[in-house]
């Protein structure tokens, strides 16, 4: 009993402060999170339009696709159909999430209307090391994925980047591997779902 009293006497301020600060954070999060989501949505729209050259509009065609992620964890994602000005399918897009070097990496990945080739990707959010890992956002790295066959990709450190092989960023191998891993985790399930739904 005396041990519990001693513990409370020593740490009551810490416990009380934790509750107060937690409440403060919950209020701030509740107030601003809808706006943060709206910002992310606007950014996603901008990125998809930028990745698919003749994109006119897009909409979610398959919701909550279950992707078996790292350590058996199931990740949910939506598949977007991108249409051109004539109303025809210009491609598909989805958001892929995976672990990077410093934090989660969130990508927007686009594939063509026949699910045969990647149209490219862009980074929705990441906290990779500035000057190294954050080079995954740069055009030089991203263009390697444009037009590559939509299947399992491999990261290489030397040699020629072709036939599903992507050259890693010097000094940022972990970040480069994380990007490729995200592609590999998602692509089979996404193409399977599109084909099952008869959207291709």
């Amino acid at each position, binding site marked *: 009993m005396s041990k519990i009293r001693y513990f409370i006497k*020593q740490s009551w*301020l810490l416990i009380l402060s934790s509750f107060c600060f937690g409440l403060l954070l919950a209020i701030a999060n509740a107030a601003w999170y809808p*706006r*943060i989501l709206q*910002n992310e949505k606007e*950014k996603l729209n901008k990125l998809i339009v930028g990745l698919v050259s003749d994109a006119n509009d897009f909409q979610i065609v398959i919701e909550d696709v279950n992707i078996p992620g790292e350590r058996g964890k199931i990740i949910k994602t939506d598949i977007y159909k991108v249409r051109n000005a004539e109303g025809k399918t210009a491609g598909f897009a989805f958001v892929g999430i995976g672990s990077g070097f410093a934090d989660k990496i969130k990508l927007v990945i686009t594939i063509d209307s026949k699910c045969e080739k990647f149209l490219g990707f862009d980074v929705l*959010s990441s*906290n990779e090391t500035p*000057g190294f890992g954050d080079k995954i956002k740069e055009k030089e790295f991203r263009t390697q994925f444009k037009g590559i066959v939509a299947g399992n990709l491999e990261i290489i450190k030397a040699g020629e980047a072709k036939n599903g092989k992507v050259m890693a960023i010097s000094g940022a191998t972990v970040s480069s591997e994380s990007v490729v891993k995200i592609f590999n985790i998602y692509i089979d399930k996404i193409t399977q779902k599109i084909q099952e739904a008869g959207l291709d």
Partner: protein
Amino acid sequence: MTTKTTEGPILGQTFIAGLWRENPVFRLLLGMCPTLAVTAAVKPALTMGLSVIFVLVCSNIVVSLMRNLLKPHLRILMFTLTISTFVTIADLFLRAFQPVMSERLGPYVPLIIVNCIIICRAEACASKNGLVVSIVDAVGMGIGFTLALCVLAGVRELLSTGMIFEAKVMPAWFVPWAAMSMPVGAFITLGLLLGLVNKLTKGKS
């Protein structure tokens, strides 16, 4: 009456100390990580400075209010808890209302948690002084940090792009020094400015 006559100069000195005599960047060499990382342009430097002022003022207020209740062996834990709460609020605010700037600053906003200036002021000032002195100290130190960042960023942005606040100020013949926007530019500019400040304050400290 006596209190009023002594408090004024003390508050003034506390405020001025952060701006020059104990400037966090140029005199105490604290907060070097954001000083080098976010000063490629004035806008991100100013945003970082304002975020630090917010966190510094809020954490100094909380620490000052609870200073008599702090247990010596738990104080650093309490400081970290307080600072991380306000940093998270600042981060959420930037993500909600300044998404482009939030993205540009990247991990450096969450990294304010480990900024030595804030924990230093909590330990050296707020945990030993009253509310008013703590607030004045936080504002002085915060403005001092922000000004230092902006001076550094101003020099780098001007030389690397010929612009200030993204507005062209250099003549057409000026060739931008790309290196100034890179880490090497940050180190060179900081080194030169530290040398200048040391020269100006020689024999005065």
